[in-house]
């Protein structure tokens, strides 16, 4: 019988895990460690309507103080786990050793930095609330030119927010179209089109040599010698899982904490959210997701798994789902698409600003993309969960009015 469970990480996965432990009847001690001083907050608005100043800080809260007291959760903020020993089941927190009966690793990921840019004022990454507030303040004071390095989801959302604030925006992207590794070339081109229509200067197929500026950023130099002037640079080139503190723990670390199909990393230790790489039986390989919905679901699942053991628990094998809001478009993807997939628009057309498209391979429906089409995305998501064929998906599509 466990008497104490520690959760390392006080963001979405960690908080949902703690709530689940209580709702599943765990009566022991629950301790959550968060390395930031901030009370737990939600991240998606940080690149969207919190960044543009519309959403107040209070709305970001993931859990109220009353709830923390009611659930008897010990929340230790500004507290960083620095080491783990899986044999003795002890954590090292700022040099002090502490044992646990159960551990949930939910340390998330951090924004990847551009080398040699941290000394220059006006160069930002976006991951934390403080990052978002710094960029928001800079948007208010910036003369005009915002340069975004990387046309991933963060970069595209920041571009959208900055354009809505009537700032001049340039995006620099190494690939030929934005997001093509996730959504394919055809959809990447559609996204590229509406950024251009909304006044973004989108430069694809370019590579950054260095950020220029002695003290304050002045521009971004490309490898072809072009200098793009900048008053503010936002770097959105992906995220790195926070696993350094686990290097000597005995856990397997390979771009995330490696877990089995039930999110178990070692006896009595589970992982959830952006930091977790687990074996997904549906895809037959280990994957790591950085999606909001997965952080919620995997947080819940890992807490249940810890309490109830493997035999009572089916493997964690969800159909992933995420959304991104850019300009007046809501982009949603359910499933996992790959570059070899066939892609077909099945309802409406990109020209209309809203459509539904499906990805398939080897006769199977793999993923669905909707732009301002949430209803269809969920309908096709259900088909993916059922393991529907490409033919069945097309038949379903032909029945949509």
């Amino acid at each position, binding site marked *: 019988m466990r008497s104490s469970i520690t959760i390392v990480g006080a963001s979405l996965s960690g908080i*949902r895990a703690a709530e689940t432990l209580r709702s599943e009847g765990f009566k022991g001690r629950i301790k959550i460690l968060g390395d930031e001083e901030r009370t737990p907050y*939600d991240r*998606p608005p940080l690149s969207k309507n919190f960044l543009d100043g519309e959403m107040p800080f209070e709305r970001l809260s993931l859990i109220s103080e009353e709830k923390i007291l009611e659930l008897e959760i010990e929340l230790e903020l500004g507290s960083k786990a620095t080491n783990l020993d899986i044999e003795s089941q002890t954590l090292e927190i700022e040099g002090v050793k502490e044992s646990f009966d159960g551990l949930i690793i939910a340390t998330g990921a951090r924004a990847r930095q551009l080398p040699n840019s941290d000394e220059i004022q006006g160069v930002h990454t976006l991951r934390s609330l403080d990052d978002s507030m710094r960029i928001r303040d800079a948007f208010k004071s910036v003369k005009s030119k915002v340069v975004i390095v990387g046309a991933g989801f963060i970069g595209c959302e920041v571009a959208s927010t900055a354009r809505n604030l009537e700032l001049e925006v340039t995006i620099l992207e190494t690939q030929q179209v934005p997001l093509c590794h996730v959504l394919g070339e055809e959809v990447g081109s559609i996204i590229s089109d509406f950024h251009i229509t909304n006044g973004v200067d989108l430069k694809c197929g370019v590579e950054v040599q260095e950020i220029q500026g002695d003290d304050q950023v002045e521009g971004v130099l490309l490898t072809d010698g072009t200098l793009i002037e900048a008053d503010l640079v936002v770097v959105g080139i992906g995220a790195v899982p926070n696993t350094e503190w686990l290097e000597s723990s005995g856990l397997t670390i390979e771009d995330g904490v490696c877990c089995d199909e039930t999110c178990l990393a070692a006896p009595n230790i589970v992982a959830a959210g952006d930091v977790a790489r687990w074996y997904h039986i549906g895809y037959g390989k280990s994957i790591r997701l950085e999606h*909001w*919905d997965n952080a*919620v*679901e995997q947080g*819940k699942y890992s807490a249940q798994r810890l309490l109830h053991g493997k035999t009572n628990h089916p493997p964690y094998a969800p159909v992933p*789902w995420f*959304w991104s*809001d850019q300009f007046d478009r*809501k982009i*949603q993807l359910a499933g996992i698409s790959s570059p070899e997939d066939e892609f077909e628009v099945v309802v409406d057309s990109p020209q209309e600003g809203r459509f539904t498209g499906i990805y398939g391979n080897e006769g199977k429906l793999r993923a669905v993309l909707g732009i*301002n089409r*949430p*209803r269809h*995305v*969920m309908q096709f*998501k*259900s088909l993916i969960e059922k393991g529907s064929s490409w033919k069945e998906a097309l038949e379903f599509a032909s029945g949509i*009015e």
Partner: protein
Amino acid sequence: MRVVVDFDLCESNAICMQIAPDIFEVRDDDFLYVLEETPSEDRRSSLEESVQRCPKQAISIEE
């Protein structure tokens, strides 16, 4: 129990519709409709899941 949706927050992500299609429906006009405002007790776990997985935290349960 009673389903309460804050329509100022709702952005029609439609995840609730997938979890509890008998309670929530996002129609072709992109708006969310609550089909059953006072669902029976046996729908509680689906409803709670909808509350948790709504990216906008727009759904709540009133007892």
